[in-house]
């Protein structure tokens, strides 16, 4: 009993270690949901040691595969997002840390990000052509953030989120229209 194990050579930074403690409860709950929901899915969890070139900088990825993958990513990843939200809530992860753990499936997050960046540029051009504010389709908070950031460099348009909850919309506004809109809180 007495022999104390030698200190491991590398020590995790404190926040990283804390994140690791969510692994087991996430895995347990996901296994239950997959079994009881009759989903044909499996998943692996991996740490991103050096956060990939990614503004969201997730540190833990839960990666799904299996016959029901299509179900996860359809409707812009509605089921993937729902699972992520429920599971992270259930394991009591603080909401500020929700971006640190991400659920993914066949590169969906990366592909969706690229799609959103492209959509942002096209919509910005559309707003300029029409000279009127251009509201985008409904997006999640995370998706809106990608669009805001994608258009930050453009001086000919600005972006705003308007409305509340599920109805919140990102609107692209030609810079020429000036800045007199109601709710300029960026997200």
């Amino acid at each position, binding site marked *: 009993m007495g022999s104390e194990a030698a200190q491991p050579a590398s020590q995790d930074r404190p926040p990283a270690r804390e994140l690791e403690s969510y692994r087991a409860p996430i895995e347990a709950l996901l296994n239950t949901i997959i079994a009881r929901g*009759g989903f044909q899915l499996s998943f692996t969890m991996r740490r991103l040691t050096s956060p990939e070139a990614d503004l969201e900088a997730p540190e833990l990825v839960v990666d799904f595969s299996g016959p029901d993958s299509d179900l996860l990513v359809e409707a812009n990843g509605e089921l993937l997002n729902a699972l992520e939200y429920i599971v992270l809530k259930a394991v009591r992860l603080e909401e500020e840390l929700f971006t640190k753990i991400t659920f993914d499936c066949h590169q969906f997050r990366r592909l969706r990000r690229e799609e959103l960046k492209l959509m942002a540029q096209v919509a910005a051009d559309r707003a300029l052509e029409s000279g009127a504010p251009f509201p985008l389709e409904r997006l999640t908070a995370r998706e809106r953030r990608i669009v805001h950031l994608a258009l930050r460099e453009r001086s000919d348009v600005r972006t705003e989120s308007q409305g509340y*909850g599920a109805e919140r919309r990102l609107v692209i506004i030609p810079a020429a229209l000036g800045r007199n809109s109601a709710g300029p809180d960026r997200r």
Partner: protein
Amino acid sequence: MKELIEAIAKALVDNPDQVQVRTVEGEQVTVLELRVHPSDLGKVIGKQGRTARSIRTILGAAGMKLKKRFTLEILE
């Protein structure tokens, strides 16, 4: 499907022993009635109903696999 909702609700609330799910079979649709401790209502509904919406998405997908329609009613 009852077991799915039970498991999700129990994971979300602070009083898992107070979670009850009742199945009401209709012709077109099966209704799952979820009851939780009053102090846990917010936990299953969430900000602007986001948690409830997410549970319904999961329920809908699981139902689709069975080719059946399910709806979730959260009882107060």
